């Protein structure tokens, strides 16, 4: 391809990227801006030693550096600017290159990352602050408190996503509703886009376009996905829990079980017994907009009503029990038993199987199984699989099925995969053997 054609194609992709950014389609934006960068860089590098080709040479290098900066590739951006300056750029372009260099170096040396994607997340984020109640840590915070807070908040969000999915998506519109629901829930994770360490403050956001669903793309699903975080903010974070009108509205929107799953983790965070207090603040973590107060019984009953035992079959409840038993001869008696709220265990896999298809790992693969709030869950970052289930056998079966289904979907949809999805497919292919 000629230099001008490469450049023209890069400009076209950059414009498409901007359009996706304006529509908050971040994953598409990132893919396009990266492709635009690769093309513009190739065009610029054709003129690497053509120092007399000004202004074209420095204009192309400046464009490529700008795209590198937008892609978060700050080192590459600096390198491209340096290449441009080694030529003979016109003064105007040189001034622009130096300005871009200053901006890039400034961003690179900051303690936090800055790029268009994070800016967009921060724009719609909620700023939440944790403060230790005792004050004895003089502004420092207890790490387990932060972990507890983030885990419960994320749990609430996942349950909210699940509830909204069930409410808004027609079961008949999907070939495997339960699988899609589980997949959607597991991928609905909050993102922390900016933190402050004066007490503990974090910007919480969510990016639903990050979720890829190879077999789900109905209009109602798309609309639900786009509104998910905004509705979560409105219903769970900003609402006044003591307001009777809110309680009535949310009771109509979600049934008892869904409300319990959504709000119980939040009510847990607000309990008097917690060693920290939570507030929503302005984006500098200074002015408090809302403080989460310990819930009274009316709030608890409205938002997380106690399960009516006679309505829920016992075999649907999942409890983990730790027992200490004494054995004397043939007689065994339980000395101590406790229900476990949280449990985690590593499992080593050599392979897996689902629906007569088998995968063998080239090297043993370790997954972490977690039990919490009556659910088992597996979050596998390497193969990007997140599943949850109430049953121990069920979770492993679901993991196996999700792994193989996903692998098959990526292979059959290879032409339409994004850059990141292609990298994931390579990971699957390079680390496993399959028998189909």
């Amino acid at each position: 391809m000629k230099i001008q054609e490469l450049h023209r194609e890069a400009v076209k992709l950059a414009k498409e990227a901007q359009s996706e950014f304006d529509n908050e389609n971040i994953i598409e934006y990132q893919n396009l801006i990266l492709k635009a960068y690769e093309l513009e860089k190739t065009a610029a590098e054709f003129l690497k030693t053509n120092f007399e080709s000004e202004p074209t040479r420095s204009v192309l290098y400046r464009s490529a550096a700008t795209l590198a900066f937008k892609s978060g590739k700050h080192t590459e951006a600096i390198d491209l600017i340096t290449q441009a300056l080694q030529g003979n750029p016109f003064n105007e372009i040189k001034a622009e290159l130096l300005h871009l260099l200053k901006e890039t170096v400034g961003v690179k040396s900051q303690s936090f990352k800055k790029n268009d994607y994070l800016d967009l997340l921060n724009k719609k984020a909620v700023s939440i602050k944790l403060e230790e109640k005792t004050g004895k840590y003089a502004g420092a915070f207890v790490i387990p408190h932060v972990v507890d807070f983030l885990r419960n908040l994320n749990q609430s969000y996942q349950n909210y996503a699940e509830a909204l999915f069930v409410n808004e998506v027609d079961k008949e519109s999907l070939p495997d509703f339960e699988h899609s629901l589980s997949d959607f829930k597991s991928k609905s994770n909050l993102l922390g886009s900016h933190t402050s360490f004066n007490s503990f403050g974090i910007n919480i956001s969510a990016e639903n376009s990050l979720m890829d669903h190879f077999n789900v793309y109905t209009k109602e699903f798309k609309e639900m996905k786009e509104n998910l975080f905004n509705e979560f903010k409105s219903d769970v974070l900003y609402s006044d829990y003591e307001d009777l009108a809110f309680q009535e509205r949310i009771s109509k929107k979600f049934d008892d079980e869904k409300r319990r799953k959504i709000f119980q983790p939040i009510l847990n965070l607000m309990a008097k017994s917690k060693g920290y207090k939570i507030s929503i603040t302005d984006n500098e973590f200074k002015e408090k907009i809302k403080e989460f107060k310990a819930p009274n019984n009316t709030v608890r009953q409205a938002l997380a009503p106690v399960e009516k035992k006679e309505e829920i079959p016992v075999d649907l409840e999942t409890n983990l029990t730790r027992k200490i038993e004494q054995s004397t001869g043939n007689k065994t008696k339980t000395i101590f038993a406790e229900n476990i709220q949280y449990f985690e265990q590593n499992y080593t896999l050599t392979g897996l199987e689902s629906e007569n298809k088998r995968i063998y790992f080239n090297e043993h693969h370790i997954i972490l199984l977690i039990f919490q709030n009556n659910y088992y869950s597996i979050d596998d970052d390497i193969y990007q699989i997140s599943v949850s289930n109430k049953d121990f056998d069920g979770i492993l079966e679901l993991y196996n099925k999700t792994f193989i289904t996903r692998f098959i979907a990526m292979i059959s949809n290879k032409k339409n995969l994004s850059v990141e999805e292609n990298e994931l497919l390579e990971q699957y292919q390079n680390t496993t053997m399959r028998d189909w």
Partner: protein
Amino acid sequence: MNLSLEDLKDAMIYFSQVQCQGLTENCIVALEEIPHSTGCELQVSGLHTGKISLDWSTVVNKNGYKEKKKYTEKGAEALSFFLAMKYTEFDIVEESIISTGVDYWLGYGEKHEKHDPLNFIKARLEISGILKETPTNSFKKRIEEKKKQTKASDNTGLPAYVSIIEFSNLKGHISKK
């Protein structure tokens, strides 16, 4: 001289037809906002002095064109492209990618004898649009501002052209910085 605004899509061979049609529509919206109608005359100054009759037939659905600043800017781009192609030696107008906005570049077309595939960008085109001039934001003042920005002529500056379009009194200016 006559200029049909719809001809932009055929004149700009390196831009997509869709984009050119968009620019044309923005220009029509800006003109009709004043309101001007087809056959109105653009008074040109700078590299050329004279009048150009502007014609159009497209009926634009204006529901999508509510932001004045945007259609003024895009409308000015459309007319500036015509002026640049007509009154400079260059006939390529293309966009570049910068962090703060958009630049347009001029160069020789691929069929031109001076075309250099290794140095196809020759000059910058800076475009400015005013919907309705005011005493503090007048056409004349904008030209003067652009001229002040020019560094002392020492042949080391980037070749650049300035185009300013004012819609209410229908004035256009194109000159080399």
